């Protein structure tokens, strides 16, 4: 029994990690700029499609028709030569193999630019307007983003292979001194979890230990006073929006091997992430992370057959159910601050 529970706990971690990363970005934007960003899921999706594009570029081939060689049917054989191998030799092959992690390097600057452009271009004009209008404009932007992606990449999911070395399962049970082959766990999910932990840790460290982070935290607490001290808080908040976009983007990149991305992957995650943010408490970064993992793990437990036998269909609704209960008994969510969005 213990093994089963431990396994479900592990299974919940990767989904929980994805929720936590998206919720973290949402909360960063909300906590700094006070904007409810429905386009955040679209940023996750854009990140995932950065990975798709990078892989497309890396696996480009030259196709030459070689009249000398004939296929078994007697037609001239097409010779495909991967460009990356031709140019970079073995390193090119490694690059293709590790295209997903490699995409992160390219995704970060792209998402930073996208995030800052989004904030300066549109969201900036919505600070003084009601939350309902912020929701609506970002919702519209999300539709635009996903339709653009759909018209470029088509409506079908595009599978992304994970690096060959990271395929297969890790025997976690054996590592922990238990019997072998009972608790096995796909390596990539473990990688995803570790990656999420590093990103979350980095964001928190950035806010906690750098001067920039200190100013941002001060601005979150009292924007006006920080502004009066002669600090250009708006520019820092803009950069935080870019950072949130980067977090969402890299979360999307690393998730592609687990779930082939299509154009509405962002929306699917967004709805759940909003629930996560609200459960964690609007504007609380630790709350968002904790609620993300908690809901991911709860969802994983709810999909156990033993649980489903008692409450049929519970796996479909558990997240929403928890959200409803928490909101009704603890209006501010788990760790929400007083006076945030309680209008």
């Amino acid at each position, binding site marked *: 029994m213990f093994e089963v529970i431990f396994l479900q706990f592990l299974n919940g971690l990767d989904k929980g990690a994805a929720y936590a990363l998206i919720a973290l970005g949402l909360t960063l934007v909300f906590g700094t700029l006070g904007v*409810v960003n429905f386009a955040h899921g679209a940023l996750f999706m854009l990140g995932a499609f950065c990975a798709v594009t990078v892989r497309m570029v890396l696996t480009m081939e030259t196709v030459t028709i070689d009249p000398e060689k004939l296929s078994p049917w007697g037609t001239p054989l097409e010779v495909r030569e991967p460009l990356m191998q031709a140019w970079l030799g073995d390193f090119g092959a490694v690059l293709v193999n590790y295209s997903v992690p490699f995409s992160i390097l390219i995704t970060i600057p792209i998402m930073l630019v996208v995030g800052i452009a989004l904030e300066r271009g*549109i969201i900036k*004009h919505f600070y003084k*307007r009601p*939350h*309902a*209008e912020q*929701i*609506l*404009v970002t*919702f*519209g*932007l*999300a*539709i*635009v983003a996903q*339709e*653009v992606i*759909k*018209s470029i990449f088509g*409506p079908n999911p595009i599978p992304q292979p994970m690096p060959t070395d990271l395929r297969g399962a890790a025997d976690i049970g054996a590592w922990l001194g238990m019997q072998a082959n009972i608790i096995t766990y796909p390596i990539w999910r473990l990688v995803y979890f570790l990656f999420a932990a590093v990103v979350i840790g980095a964001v928190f460290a950035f806010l906690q230990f750098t001067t920039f982070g200190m100013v941002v935290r001060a601005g979150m607490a009292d924007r006006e006073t920080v502004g009066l001290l002669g600090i250009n808080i708006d520019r820092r908040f803009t950069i935080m929006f870019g950072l949130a976009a980067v977090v969402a983007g890299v979360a999307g990149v690393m998730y592609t091997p687990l779930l082939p991305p299509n154009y509405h992957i962002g*929306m699917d995650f967004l*709805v759940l992430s*909003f*629930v996560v943010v*609200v459960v964690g408490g*609007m504007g609380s970064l630790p709350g968002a992370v904790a609620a993300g993992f908690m809901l991911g793990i709860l969802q994983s437990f709810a999909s156990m057959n033993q649980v489903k036998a008692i409450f*049929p*269909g519970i796996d*479909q*609704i558990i997240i*929403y*159910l928890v*959200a*409803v209960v928490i*909101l*009704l008994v603890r*209006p501010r969510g788990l760790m929400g601050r007083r006076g945030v*969005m*309680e*209008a």
Partner: protein
Amino acid sequence: MNANLMSRNDLVLLLGFSLVVLTMPIWLAPLGAGYPDLLQRFMIYGIFAVGFNILFGLTGYLSFGHAAFFGVGSYTAVWSLKLLTLDAIPAMVLAVIISGIFALIIGFLCLRRSGIYFSILTLAFAQMSYNLAYSVLTPITNGETGLQLTLSDPRVIDAAVGHSFVGQPIPTLFGTPIGGYAGFYFCAAFLIIAFFVAQRIAGSPFGMMLKAIKSNQTRMQFTGFNTRPYALSAFVISGMYAGLAGALLAVTDPLAGAERMQWTASGEVVLMTILGGVGTLVGPVIGAWIIKYFENILSALNDNILARFFDVLPDGVDSFLVKVIGKFVGDGWHLTLGLVFVIIVIFLPGGIMEGVRRIAAAFRNRGSTPRTSNQTQAAE
């Protein structure tokens, strides 16, 4: 109609609205939308949007889960058509009652919070209904296939009165099948009634209370009003409107699927209301019509039709135009919708109605001496 019941302006608006609705088959024909199937949808989503506006426009609560009531209405109506009788009236009545009860329960819980928390709570309930309709409730909802009428349905009342029929079961109104233009006028009658009721609500003391809740709920509470019952009534009424619309959709096309409860469907009604104009009576209906119209017209266009349209232009130019515009029509029409929506929210938060009002005000100012725009708000 006596003067106490309605002011002259309201009466003119109602009559004008009815006239526009009833003559739709005529004036929409040249626009390529004069066929009953689409017209029925215009009516149905018009009702949905009018009802949504009672909650969002008047009371100020942004619900992201209204499609749940729409779906409940549809399922109830189909079940009534299956179990009781093929007549549409019991189906509609039952659908409105059941979705009202459903709205009462959900509204009671959701209205304990406001703002974004309210939005998320309604979203959570709607997603729960949607997920359950797909999984555990399959015996009731028939899952992905959708609930349909079959020849072997019991139809207790029809059987009791000895009413029988041959062929595919079609919903009827007192024995006349509802289809084609009959279906359109059936829905149109409901839209006009729904519009009338909304008009009465907006003009009544109850409507004033709802507007007061929207503008400052805290002050209302300080002056000693208990705002909860009012907000809850608005929620239930708006849920019943959604149920009515869902029932009409099920009656005109007896197939109820879970996807009409999904949150994208809830998002669509929000779009309709915003596009037309939040808080106005006519706006949401116009928004619904525009979205449904372009959904049908733009998504039917393809590159061939565009190529024929731009044939007169020089060769390079026309293929370029076809390529660019082709991205925005057909499957890509959602892109157009998204862009238009973003532009509307940024530049014209009051929707099309505000645009109309601004243009009207500009004309008035140019024509006669400038005056304050108090009188331009007749539509509200």
